């Protein structure tokens, strides 16, 4: 909780530093959304010059702590529905959250796929160097779900602390394969190749978005959420490999 208070102070400073004339809207978004939301910010401010969108990226659970501790967040976009539910349980949502994007998993392999990895079934081959995200990290839990659905008991060589660390070891060729998000292999397609995980095994990560109730900028916030859910916002996210809302 103390950490939350400090973060709130930091965010308050962030907000008070931005320009005076325009209405400020603080958007807290999961780190994995960074590329997409930077593009959305630019598009939104172009069509809504009266609004100054201030982006605050971080791990979804850290963002949750900030909001619970009273951060002046207008919009919260989480990588995880459970975390959004915690904010809802605290009575802080203006309206129920909506899923605005989804993500799937893919197998990342070094360029040219030197080990010839063909799919999830290769993850029990001890002669290969294989990596996953650690348990408890969303990409690690999703990857284990996929392997379980495929009936594969993985024999891995490392449980990486986050998806970027895993991807780096694949890029360098130190790992023969690792399970990451589709959006990651798209973002790094110049340095890694990917192997598709069939839909039947592939879990879907859902990203919910909501207006925070006490932000005092609910109209502005509601319009921004509509923009993300609308054609323009969805196109930006689809470009980066996210699944867009049903």
């Amino acid at each position, binding site marked *: 909780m103390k950490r939350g208070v400090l973060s709130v102070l930091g965010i308050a400073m962030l907000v008070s530093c931005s320009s005076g004339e325009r209405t400020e809207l603080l958007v807290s978004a999961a780190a994995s959304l960074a590329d997409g939301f930077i593009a959305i910010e630019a598009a939104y401010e172009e069509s809504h010059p009266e609004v100054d969108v201030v982006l605050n990226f971080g791990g979804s659970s850290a963002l949750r702590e900030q909001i619970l501790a009273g951060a002046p967040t207008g919009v919260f976009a989480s990588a995880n529905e459970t975390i959004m539910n915690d904010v809802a349980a605290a009575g802080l949502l203006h309206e129920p959250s909506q899923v605005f994007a989804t993500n799937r998993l893919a197998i990342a392999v070094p360029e040219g796929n030197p080990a010839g990895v063909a799919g999830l079934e290769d993850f029990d081959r001890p002669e290969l*160097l294989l*990596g996953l995200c*650690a*348990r*408890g*990290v969303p990409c690690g839990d999703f990857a284990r779900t996929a392997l379980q659905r495929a009936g594969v008991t993985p024999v*891995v*060589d*490392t*449980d*990486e*602390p986050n998806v970027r*660390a895993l991807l780096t*070891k694949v890029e*360098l*060729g*130190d790992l023969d394969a690792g399970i990451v998000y589709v959006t990651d292999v798209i973002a790094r397609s110049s340095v890694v190749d990917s192997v598709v995980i069939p839909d039947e095994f592939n879990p879907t990560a859902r990203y919910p978005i909501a207006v925070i109730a006490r932000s005092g900028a609910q109209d502005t916030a509601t319009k921004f959420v509509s923009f993300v859910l609308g054609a323009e916002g969805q196109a930006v996210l689809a470009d980066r490999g996210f699944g867009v809302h049903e």
Partner: protein
Amino acid sequence: MSDGTASRRRGTRRPPILLVMLGGFGLLFLLIPLMGLLGEVAWSDLPELLGRPVVVDAMRLSLLSSVAATLLAAVIGVPLAWLLAKVDFPGRSLVRGLVLLPLVLPPVVGGAALLFALGRRGVVGGPLHDLTGLVLPFSIWGVVIAATFVSMPFLVITVEGALTALDDRYEWAGATLGAGRWTVLRRVTLPLIAPSLGAGLILTWARALGEFGATITFAGNLQGRTQTLPLAVFVALESDRAIAVALSLLMVLVALAVLILLRNRWLRSL
């Protein structure tokens, strides 16, 4: 000189209140996190938590790899310290700077550098893999190499300092009495620097035991193979906080033991 002495005497009588306050905050700043940690410890569950396989594996691996790293550092680091202290070769100050680099470098950068060099496609790791099939990352060798890389500077600077401060005449005396160079080294030099060597080895071992960034970057993280105590703490923080706290407490106790050892062997002589 006399001014300095006078003000020092005045200073001891009544320390400036500002310094006392700031110093007090300094002390609190060091103590509060420890208190926070102690406040989180589930004392009654502690024996059970410390007996969990993930903890036992991490302890075994940490002990093994930190001792191996200390031995490796001794085998290659003490000779390096001797060269730096005793041989006036061109570029000596450059080499001395290089030796200190891992002390200043963020460990994760060291780990990345190790990965680029010794990884399966690295400049050294690539040929090594092609010739022998050996892969250093994701193995205990990777853990030992990462720990040695970050901890060896402690040994080199401690031993080099001791060798530089050593009075050459003892070694000359040994030599004039007919001792060969190895005998002088073994019977005269090493016994004379033994306290510093001991302190350097303890510091090196402690740094190797606490090593995190280079290890997780270079060697990866797998329970029972590369997951040392600090890595286990890091991973457990996101999944099982009670374990993370128990492991942290264990490391605090080890750190305290090291300080007590150092106090008796080394700090007293300062």
